[in-house]
């Protein structure tokens, strides 16, 4: 029996894997020590658990455990990396290069730094959502200290050419930071092969708990340093003070271990389901795939259904299928997704988009249900859409003088 509602919003968050929860439980009650208590068994036990988790996390990304700084999540990691590098390398320069489809945690951090004197270049992406490498190289100047480009995009799932990006950065002696939230645990990420100097990622996008994440900070070739953004007891090699979230970190470690073991088989199975869903939905008339079809995550597809509005569309099934739309139809924000607009999509297509994010526990039965109900709702709403009627009558919508409000 199919259990409803179906969860297809795994880019927002993932459920904890039961194996992760099982690993965490003892650290709430019996093994509750503070990992910084150096003088008694409770502290030693907690510290040991954190050290083990640090190894599990490091192994997933090919790092040394000493290069892992535990944080509260990726927003903190993004802030610490960008602000920390900006402050630490102030004598070298003040220029940072990023792109316009980054997560708000990166974009808003950059905007904030602009107020403090930073010069930020926001690169446009190509219509397929990928960075233009020539434009990236052309943007580098003597004052450039950091390139901050996401590993994979949260809305369209496109995977950036990290190795090419870091090769350019190396050539010019610029550090590379990447927001790895959507990629780590889903596709192979190796900080050495990929040439990454700093990377933020988080547990809750890979079947771990919320409220815990990590910042990878390279220790060799080159040795990277960031200025701490939270002052206190000097935890995490002085880069991030604050009592460690031991149960969360234990769960994060377990989640990383499972991802390392199962990533390949998960990705294969999930991408087959994603392709089934995508192929069926792209058979619907006037539906379009957003973002590059090749260079992307295995579990994501973002599709626009022209002539229907995303929020109205979701209302047709959101009691039973949880997913996300690029449309925000409120008087406070009539702007559709800035990511889709950055790809050059017209507002009409951006308003008509749905993001499907599959996961470890997604079944074929759920996908079949989703295909049926999304297709039916699109058809039903098109029967109600004046734009669909005009399209069917051969009227060019661009020739109409709309009353903008």
């Amino acid at each position: 029996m199919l259990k409803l509602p179906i969860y297809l919003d795994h880019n927002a968050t993932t459920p904890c894997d039961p194996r992760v929860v099982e690993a965490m439980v003892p650290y709430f009650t019996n093994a509750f020590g503070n990992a910084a208590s150096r003088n008694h068994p409770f502290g030693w036990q907690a510290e040991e658990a954190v050290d083990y988790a640090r190894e599990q996390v490091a192994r997933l990304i090919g790092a040394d455990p000493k290069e892992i700084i535990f944080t509260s999540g990726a927003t903190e990691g993004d802030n610490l990396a960008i602000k920390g590098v900006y402050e630490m390398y102030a004598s070298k320069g003040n220029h940072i290069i990023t792109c316009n489809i980054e997560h708000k945690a990166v974009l808003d951090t950059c905007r904030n730094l602009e107020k403090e004197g930073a010069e930020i270049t926001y690169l446009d992406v190509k219509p397929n959502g990928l960075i233009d490498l020539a434009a990236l190289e052309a943007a580098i100047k003597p004052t450039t200290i950091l390139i901050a480009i996401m590993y994979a995009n949260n809305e369209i799932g496109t995977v950036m050419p990290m190795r090419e990006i870091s090769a350019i950065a190396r050539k010019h002696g610029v550090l590379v930071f990447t927001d790895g939230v959507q990629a780590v645990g889903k596709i192979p990420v190796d900080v050495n092969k990929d040439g990454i100097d700093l990377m933020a990622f988080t547990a809750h996008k890979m079947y771990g708990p919320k409220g815990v994440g990590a910042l990878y900070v390279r220790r060799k070739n080159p040795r990277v340093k960031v200025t701490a953004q939270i002052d206190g007891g000097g935890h995490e090699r002085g880069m991030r003070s604050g009592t460690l979230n031991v149960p969360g970190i234990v769960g994060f470690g377990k989640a990383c271990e499972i991802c390392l073991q199962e990533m390949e088989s998960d990705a294969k199975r999930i991408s087959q389901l994603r392709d089934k869903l995508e192929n069926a939905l792209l058979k619907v008339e006037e539906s379009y795939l957003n973002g590059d079809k090749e260079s992307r995550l295995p579990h994501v597809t973002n599709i626009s259904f022209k002539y229907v509005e995303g929020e109205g569309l979701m209302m047709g099934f959101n009691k039973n299928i949880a997913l996300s739309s690029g449309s925000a139809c409120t008087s406070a924000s009539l702007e559709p997704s800035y990511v889709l607009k950055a790809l050059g999509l017209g507002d009409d297509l951006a308003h008509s988009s749905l993001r499907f994010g599959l996961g470890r526990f997604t079944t074929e039965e759920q996908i079949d249900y989703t295909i049926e109900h999304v297709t039916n709702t699109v058809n039903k709403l098109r029967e109600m859409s004046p734009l669909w009627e005009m399209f069917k009558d051969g009227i060019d919508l661009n020739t109409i003088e709309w009353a903008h409000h």
Partner: protein
Amino acid sequence: MAYSEKVIDHYQNPKNVGTLDKGKNNVGTGLVGAPECGDVMRLQIEVDEATGIIRDAKFKTFGCGSAIASSSLATEWLKGKSVDEAVKIDNMTIVEELNLPPVKIHCSVLAEDAIKAAINDYRKKNGLEELQFEESPVH
């Protein structure tokens, strides 16, 4: 954000979806909104020429659930009213009836604008002066 039951009901069972013959003199059509803004409403009325009563009303809407519900409700209210009564339909009564939250008030404004645009189209076709309306403050 949760929708009210009335919005859900109109969304699931919209009243009066359809198209009236634009070519007829007693049919008025209002098309408001813009695709870029995420909502477009087309509302039509058919007036009984002998009595001045709105005999039929139809809509088609591209937009969120609240926009669909607002236009569906508007067509319900229009039927049986005289054109002069119809022009008095206020967006706030739609807000109250559908229990729209503040962020969705613009949907009701759009419905009111669609009604007025349809009436003016009807008046124009029949040689009557178009009514002047004050700019709605919510836009």
